[in-house]
Each structure stands twice: as structure tokens, then as C-alpha cells.
């Protein structure tokens, strides 16, 4: 009949119309919305830092930057590795894709480990004034996103063994990869805000 998109008819199952393009649009809309919550936290951080009568808790004179910097380099470069994995998938080199994808996951996991080490060595806690609360809130909320990203990558890795998984496009890998870039960009902003601007 007139005006029916052939793809829609092809994937037509009773009750649902499946379409990869919808998923990507929806996911991008979701990420835009998710970025606003970080922007809100960043704005709150900036306002409180500029106005708080006492910013750092007693006995704390700043954050150590060296370890977090190494951590940041690992996380940010993992974004390029993820892109490399995507290229392998485009070229249908599945084993190479899995290996590079696993490397991305390892780099993400290293970041979480580094974050854990840093947290356990700090001399202040969540309830140490405004700074303590904001530090743990922001890094923790970002850390949750990193963990989510690694878990989603794991899911994509498992799915890559399913025969015919990529017959209908690579939407899952593409959107997890997009999510990973998003998490990295947020981290760069967060690093500048918390570690560089002291």
C-alpha cells in the first residue's frame, strides 16, 4: 500500500513495529537529557565553591592530581579504542572486534579500580562539609555511569556470539559506544572542575 516504509513491513511482527532508527533517535534524546543532570551538578558545584564560607574541610588542603590524571588518560584513550572496535565490526572482523572491545572494558575497569583506590586513601568523607559531599556525589555518580558502561559492553560482547546478531544493524554496539564517549566527555569536564580548578 501507499507510503509504507519497506523496512517496517519487513520487520513487522504482531503488536510491534521494530525499527533500528527509532532506537538510536530515542537513545540520543535520552543522552541529551542525561547530560543536563551533570550540567546541573556542575553548576551546583561551581556556585557552592564560589560562595561557601568554608570550602575545604579542616585538615584537607587539596586533592592529589597525579593518580587521577593517569586514570583520566586511560579512560579518555579507551574512547578511541572503542571507536577502533567499532571499525573492526564494520569490517566484519568479529574476533578482532571482540578483542579490542574487551580491551575497552579492561580500561574502563582499570578506571573504576583507580577510583576505588583514590577514594580509600582520602582523608575526608561524604559528610565532611560541602566539598566532601560534592566530591563523592559527582565522582560517584560518574562512576555509576562507568560501571553501567562496562556492564553494557559486557552484554554486547556476549551478544556478539549470537549467530546473526548483526543482521539488523549494529545499533547496540553503536549506542553503547556513544554512551562511552558521553561518559568520557563528562569525565573531562569533571576533572577540570574538581582537580584542575582547586
Amino acid at each position, binding site marked *: 500500500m*501507499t507510503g509504507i516504509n519497506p523496512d517496517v513491513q519487513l520487520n513487522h511482527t504482531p*503488536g510491534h513495529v521494530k525499527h533500528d532508527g527509532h532506537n538510536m*533517535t530515542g537513545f540520543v*534524546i535520552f543522552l541529551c537529557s542525561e547530560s543536563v543532570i551533570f*550540567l546541573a*551538578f556542575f553548576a551546583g558545584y561551581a556556585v557552592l565553591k564560589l560562595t561557601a564560607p568554608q570550602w575545604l574541610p579542616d585538615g584537607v588542603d587539596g586533592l592529589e592530581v597525579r593518580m587521577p590524571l593517569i586514570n583520566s588518560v586511560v579512560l579518555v584513550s579507551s574512547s578511541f579504542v572503542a571507536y577502533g572496535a567499532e571499525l573492526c565490526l564494520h569490517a566484519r572482523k568479529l574476533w578482532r572486534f571482540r578483542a579490542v572491545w574487551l580491551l575497552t572494558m579492561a580500561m574502563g575497569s582499570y578506571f573504576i579500580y583507580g577510583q576505588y583506590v583514590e577514594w580509600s586513601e582520602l582523608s575526608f568523607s561524604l559528610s565532611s562539609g560541602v566539598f566532601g559531599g560534592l566530591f563523592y556525589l559527582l565522582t560517584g555518580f560518574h562512576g555509576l555511569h562507568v560501571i553501567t558502561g562496562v556492564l553494557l559492553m559486557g552484554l554486547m560482547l556476549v551478544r556478539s556470539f549470537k549467530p546473526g546478531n548483526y543482521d539488523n544493524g549494529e545499533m547496540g554496539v553503536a549506542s553503547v559506544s556513544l554512551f562511552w564517549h558521553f561518559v568520557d566527555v563528562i569525565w573531562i569536564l569533571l576533572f577540570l572542575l574538581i582537580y584542575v580548578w582547586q
Partner: protein
Amino acid sequence: MTITNYDPRILKAPHPVPGAPDNWKRFFSFNTDAKVIGIQYIVTSLFFLLVGGLLAMIVRGELLTPPADLVDPTVYNGLYTMHGTVMLFLFLFPILNGFNNLLIPTMIGAPDMAFPRLNAAAFWLVPVFATVLMGSFFAPGGPASSGWWSYPPMSLQNPLGHFINGQFLWILAVALSGISSIMGAVNFVTTIIRMRAPGMGFFKMPIFIWTAWAAQTIQLIGLPPLTGGAVMLLFDLSFGTSFFRPEGGGDPVLFQHFFWFYSHPAVYVLVLPVFGIFSELFPVYARKPLFGYKFVAIASFGITFLSMIVWAHHMFYTGTPNWMRHIFMFTTMLIAVPTGVKVFAWLGTLWRGNLRLNTPMLFCLGGLFNFIFAGITGVMLATVPIDIHVGNTAFVVAHFHYVIFNTIGLGVFAGIYHWFPKFTGRMYYEGLGKVHFVLTFIGATLNWLPLHWAGLLGMPRRVASYDPEFAIWNVLGSIGAFMLGVASIPFILNMVSSWARGPQAPPNPWRAIGLEWLLPSPPPAENFQDDIPTVINEPYGYGLGRPLVEDEEFYVRRSQEA
């Protein structure tokens, strides 16, 4: 295309329809059909309208006499807090999502939402957070009682020291409601962007779709900061941080920024779809094209943009610097421009129209009348000196309710009556509908008009006892509130009896123009199924004698034969 008498497309087996007596059970299941979900949303939210209304009537009962004699002032604080929360998060947001679910796919010719399962999950979160919120009545220390805006330091009080307290449950419920709304918003916007019928360019979409899109955009931008603020409030309340605690170096006014950055635009999330309903209904019942269609459409996004930069007008009297007050006064007044465009477009549509005064049209006219009044008091409140004088008085309460009930509430009722035949397949009873309108309009006016005077004279809001000089305004207001309670009786009677055994509705009882009216009443699962019409003309072609879609007779005939 030629149509023979026995077009093979007509002979398809009819799909089971939602609302048919044999499958009422699907309304209680995890159904992914947008039309079922829409009705689930609307019925659930109407139930909570009764709950919120009951709370309101206890509040008004307390205010009938100057002393605090009906309930304890502490209980009173909980009552108005829960009244506001229930009405916003369990009545207005869900009912408008109900309209979105019913109308977006049918109006743009899509078979369903882009993500049907996400859609169902978003709905089923509503009963979950409703249970959390209602459960807070039984929490130790009673429900949250710091007002629906939950300003710290009031909202950080936890005198009994329980981890699970009313405020904790309140924040949890609001956060869940936010998640549900984001899920809905992603779905609605994706559906509108990607699933329109062939030929339906942006400037051929009905205005309701424009306004729904504009409103859901606000949800996507505004809800995350509110959720962020709520998380920080929760940490302050339960985990010993001090983001908003001045004694720990925090800033309570920062919460107000987070809160109003969402909660002012939230009013536009609610009112924009009602502008959409007005824009749909006036042309139908005036038999004229919508005046200035493109301007009305673009003005929706004008409102979205401006709504994001006005929030601090709620904080003129809470210590904002002078430069900020001036900027926000200016931006707030600017909002009168796009809303003014819409009001004049509706008046232009009504002008010399052939008006048909049935129930939906009466509610629309009443809503428009009240909206103009609410707009005038809104510009008054935007003025810094007036706001500092009447801020936190009954005047603000009166203005707010003129927007939220007298405009949005009436618009929602108009929408319910207008689309009732389409989605239930039954006609409502016109007489009962008119009784409902008269009681609602008089009750609403009597309820909130006098409170403007009480506020101007200086009666503070959120108090259980007040100076006897304000008694007359409060007695009038309470009579109005009880009248609104009575008004729900003809409404419920009408809805229940006509849905059960009302006359069968034809596919297009109002002779309206729009894709949803080319479907049978009620529409089958997946709406147009495989024969999605191609839109060839702009909407609202009343009196112009042109078809909306290619091959229109076929769709009209099919809808009648279904």
C-alpha cells in the same frame, strides 16, 4: 485510485478493540498498546483527582473558620503538601500522558509508540510511586509536610530520627515520577520525530502534536536538574551531607534554583497540551480553520524556550540580588508574547464562527476565559514590587489555581468529553456533561476568585488559622471547593454509565478533521494498520471543502463499516 464496493482491504478480520466488554482485563495487564495505556493513565489519574480533591476539601474545611479547629496544624501541613503533590504528580502529569498516548499515535497515523514496552513500563511506575507516596501517610511522624516545593531547611527536619520518614518517601516518589516522565518523554518525542504518516511535514501536524512535543522537550531538559536537586536533598536528609544546610556551609537557596528550574517550566508542561486541546477544539466547534496556524505552532516552542529562563521569579523575596530580579522580571513578562499570540489566534478562530455550545466547547470557553484572567494576575506577579508585597500570600495560591485548575483542569475535561466517543466507542450524556460544566465553572470561580482579595489584604498561605478579617473570603472559597466536590458526581455518573451502556458512537460525531477521526470508534489495535493515509493538506480545513488525506472516502467508509 478507484475504490470498488468490495475493496479487499475492508474485508480484513476486525481486530479486538480496547474497551470492548469482553476484554476489560487488558486494562489491568502489562499491555503495550498505546490506546490501552492511555486509558490506564487517564482512569488512574482521575482516581487520584478524587484523592487530591478530598485532601483539598479537608484543607478548605479547616479554613472555613479562622481558628485551627478541624485538624491539628501539623496535620494541616501534611494535608496541603500531599494535596499539591498528588494533584501534580498523580493527577495532572499522568492524565496528560494519557492524552499523549491516545492522541499522538492516532493523530500522526502511527500504529503505536516508538517503544511500546518502555511506554507500558513508564505507566506501571505510576502505581508504584503512588503506593510510595500514599504509604507516607503511615510513616512515623506522618507524611511530608514542607509544602510541595520542599524547601530546606523545613524539608530537612527529621525530629523522630527514623531513616524512613514522610519526607524520605516523598523524595523517593518524586524521583520515581521523574524517571517515569523521562521514559515517557523519550518515547513521545521519538514517536513524533520518526513515525508521522507520509506527507505529514512539521507544518501539517495538528497543534496538539506541536504542543506535546514542546512540553516533552521541557521534561527532557528540566527534569534532570530537579532529580539532581532531589538526590542532593535526600543525601542531606539521610546521609549527613550539607549541600543545603547552612550550618555545614551549604546554601538552601541553591535548592530553590534546582527546584524552580524544573518546577516553573513544569507548569508549561501542563498548560502546553491544554493549549493544544484548545487549538484542536475551537476550530471544530466554530467550524472555521485555526487562525494563524503557523504562529500558534511556533509559539509553542517560543514558550518552551522562554520557560527555561524565568525560574528565579519565584525567588524575588528569598534573597536574590537586584540585577537578577530585573532580568527575570523581564523574561517572565516576555512569556506573555507567545501566549498572547495563542489567545488572539483562538479569539480569531471564534470570531464570527458558527459556535456549537456542547460540553467540550463550554469547558474550552470557560478555560480560555479563566486563562486570560490568570494571565493578567501572572503579569502582576512578575512585577517585582507587587510580588514582594503579595508573595507567599493567598493571592499566589489563587493565581496558581486559576492556571492549574481553572485553565488546565477545564481544558482536560474538555479533552475528555471531546475524545470520549473516539476512544470508548460510546457517546457521553450531554445533559450530565452540561451540569458538570456549570457546577465546575461556578465552583472554581467561587473557590479562587475571592482568595485574590484575601491575599491582597495580606492573608498568608499555608496557615491553618488566620485573622477573622479574612473570614468572608475563605467562607466563599470553601463553598466553592465543596461545590467542586459535588461536581465530580455528575462527571463520574456520566463517564461510568455512558462507557457501560451509552449510545454507540459514530466514527466522527463532531464532523472534525484529523487523522484520528478517520479511524473507527474505538480505533482497532495498530490504528491504520497497513493502510496509513498520505496527508496532502494542512489540518483544520473547516469550510474549505478540501480533503485532508489522499483517498479520503476510502478511510471514511472503512471507519464506518468497521
